[in-house]
């Protein structure tokens, strides 16, 4: 029986990335949805950048940023915080790499909420926060679930960015996709198959869920 820790590590990383990105992605997506400035296109391009940027480039610059050889990394190291080749490192890399997969669907959903939902709620005595929690977010539940699932799926399949900043340390940064690579290099095809089939199954389930959500959304509309 192959070691299950790479699968568990991938799941832990994907879940954490999705939860953290949901929390930070909601206010950012809302701010982008209401922001009216010529600079908006620049910020939106920056948000989308990880989609087209080679993961190795992201990993490389994160490695440089957090290296104790540089001021920022050295300052963190002085506080006892070491990012490269740790789980925290691959989590930060995942947050950067999957950022657009959460923010883009959320921003689109905020933009599609009719302004008069906010207005009616205010006239009914509700504050902006109450309106957000009780009216706006429930009406964008499909987008929240889609963003969460896509981020989860994207993180499960990460390879280059994790290899760059995390190395391939068993139990710490060796996620399932890296385990497949290592097992292939070691000509251990059965272990590589084992991890691959699990990732394949998870991917099929995720695609199925996204399609199911989209079908529900169309039915609701």
């Amino acid at each position, binding site marked *: 029986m192959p070691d299950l820790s790479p699968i568990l590590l991938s799941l832990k990383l994907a879940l954490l990335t999705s939860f953290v990105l949901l929390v930070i992605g909601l206010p950012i997506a809302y701010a982008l949805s209401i922001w009216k400035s010529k600079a908006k296109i620049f910020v939106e391009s920056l948000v989308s950048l990880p989609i087209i940027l080679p993961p190795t480039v992201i990993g490389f610059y994160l490695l440089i940023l957090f290296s104790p050889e540089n001021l920022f990394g050295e300052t963190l190291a002085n506080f006892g915080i070491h990012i490269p080749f740790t789980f925290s490192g691959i989590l930060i890399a995942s947050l950067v790499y999957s950022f657009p997969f959460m923010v883009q669907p959320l921003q689109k959903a905020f933009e599609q909420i*009719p302004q*008069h*939902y906010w*207005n*009616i*709620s*205010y*006239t*009914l*005595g*509700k*504050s902006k926060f109450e309106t957000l929690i*009780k*009216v706006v977010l*429930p*009406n964008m539940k499909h987008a929240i679930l889609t963003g969460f699932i896509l981020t989860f799926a994207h993180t499960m399949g990460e390879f280059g960015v994790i290899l760059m900043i995390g190395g391939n340390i068993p139990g710490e940064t060796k996620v399932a996709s890296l385990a497949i690579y290592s097992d292939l290099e070691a000509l251990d095809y059965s272990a590589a198959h084992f991890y691959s089939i699990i990732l394949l199954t998870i991917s099929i389930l995720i695609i199925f869920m996204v399609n199911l959500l989209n079908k529900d959304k169309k039915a*609701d509309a």
Partner: protein
Amino acid sequence: MLDIHIKKQIKSVRGETALEVQAHFKNEAITGIYGNSGEGKSTLFNIIAGLSSPEDGTLRYNDLVWLDSVKEINLPTQKRNTGYIFQTNSLFPHFTVKENILFAVKNENQHEVAVSEILSQVDMEGMENRYPHQLSGGQVQRIAIARALAQKAQIILMDEPFSALDLEIKQKLYSFIKVFKKKYNLMILIVTHDINDIFYLCDEVLWIKNHKTTGTIPIDEFKKEIELKLRNL
């Protein structure tokens, strides 16, 4: 009564212009806000509801100052207690009819509100657990009125409430609104570009021409003006 005297810059097809409104709306009356598209009718509603602020002006409801640009008073929307009904989607789609009505009631008073009683007032008994998409356009507007009653709104703002409805439903809603105004002593303001809505429903009219108006006129005077306009066509 509601006294309004405001000036606000708005964007129109001819560029930026000033919306200037002076009016005195009576309690227990239905007043139509009439004018062509882009005259600033909905902007006026947003100013009354507190959703938009004019550069200059005052707004008083009975003895209470809602807005005074000189004294920098601007009562927030949440405290003005106006019922706002839109052309479509006046109800929240993720709530049932009952939840939509209870949403208008302060949490601490929710247990005292008999939703079924309010629904019977608008002839919508037994609809508590339906979602808005399971209702017709006319039913949605009636539930929105029921919600304004639950909210205990004294002013109801209706922005083109009939334009998505067919004639038969429209006429039923006309008589329904008239009955309600009397029963609950409501001030109802209706934005419309359809003179039929005004003829059937309104006691007075505020006619916005070239983004300006100087006051409401009685319905008979409005009818005469329209007839004169038609004769001169």
